[in-house]
């Protein structure tokens, strides 16, 4: 059919091999690296690459119309909105202006730790 691009079985095979190699690499990285932070970013980074390979080739977005790009992209923009504005709350919990009255030292806010974290369930979320 004219409007549809047909991806060859050969290209699919290449992508598949790449995906399997990346899977081995993730596991290798997980076992090899020391820093926890680095291992997390590494594993997630590879997941993003793998996902891109699947989306671009297996789901042939690379050869699809602009509209397909827009809809595929919109999903992630909205996901970003959900994460960004939710974390805008969580990352600023307990740093509210009312704390400024407590004990400002040289412009740095010293925070009090709740006395008994067991006591008030919601205060649990306010500690870092």
């Amino acid at each position, binding site marked *: 059919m004219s*409007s549809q691009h047909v991806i060859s079985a050969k290209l699919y095979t290449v992508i598949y091999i790449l995906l399997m190699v990346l899977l081995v690499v993730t596991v290798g990285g997980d076992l090899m690296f020391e820093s926890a932070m680095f291992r997390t970013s590494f594993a997630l980074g590879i997941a993003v690459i793998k996902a891109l390979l699947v989306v671009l080739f*297996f*789901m042939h977005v690379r050869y699809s119309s602009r509209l397909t790009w827009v809809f595929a992209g919109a999903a992630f923009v909205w996901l970003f909105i959900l*994460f960004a504005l939710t974390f805008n709350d969580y990352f600023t919990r307990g740093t509210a202006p009312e704390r400024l009255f407590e004990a400002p030292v040289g412009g740095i806010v010293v925070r009090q730790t709740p006395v008994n974290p067991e006591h008030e369930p919601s205060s649990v979320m306010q500690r870092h």
Partner: protein
Amino acid sequence: MTPSQPIDPHALDRHHVQGLAHHFDDMDQQHEAATLGMWAFLATEVLFFGGALAGYAVYRSRYGDAFAAASHHLYLWIGVINTAVLLTSSFMMALAVNAAKHGNRKKVVTFLILTILLGLAFLCIKGIEYYLDYREHLVPGSIFEANWHEMFPHIDGAHPGSMMFLRQVQLFLMFYYILTGIHAVHMIVGISVMIVLTVKAARGRYTAEYNSPIDMAGLYWHFVDVVWIFLLPLLYMVQH
């Protein structure tokens, strides 16, 4: 669709085009509609999983220790094997779509069956894994509460901080079961759809011109694969 010169749709004799629904002008329009519809649906799916992942991210940013400790009790190697199974299944699906575009009925059926079998293999392995988790008492709630010292022998249960830790471990396990659970439900839906498609394909309902359903099922199946690609590091490889 805004062609510069008006076309008369009645010029087309659509009664002889296999698979063309009455309200579409031609195959291209029908295929375009199906593709767009599928992508809009996948956008929905992204946000469906996204809601749960947002919750996961909030708690992980708070309770990194407990999440990492809990994650280390999962079977990483089973997760990895299952990823390989699912990637292979996706590959088979891609080949089925390729065969469909070439109108090769026999290959379509073969690859679809392989896709289904690998999907079923994934679910079986997942089931076994759930069973192993259960045997290890990795089940939030009373089972975990009664047996946690087997998993965390170095923890002093009397200390309030460690009680919090143990509860946060269960929070992670909740996400583990919910995320893998809804993923499994998606697999079951996909497999059911593909069984229908396989039967139809075997009966010769799809041609090189008309194969949108296979294409669309492929998009869905690859999407389920993408979700799992993220679940692997998020559930099995948590570090702190």
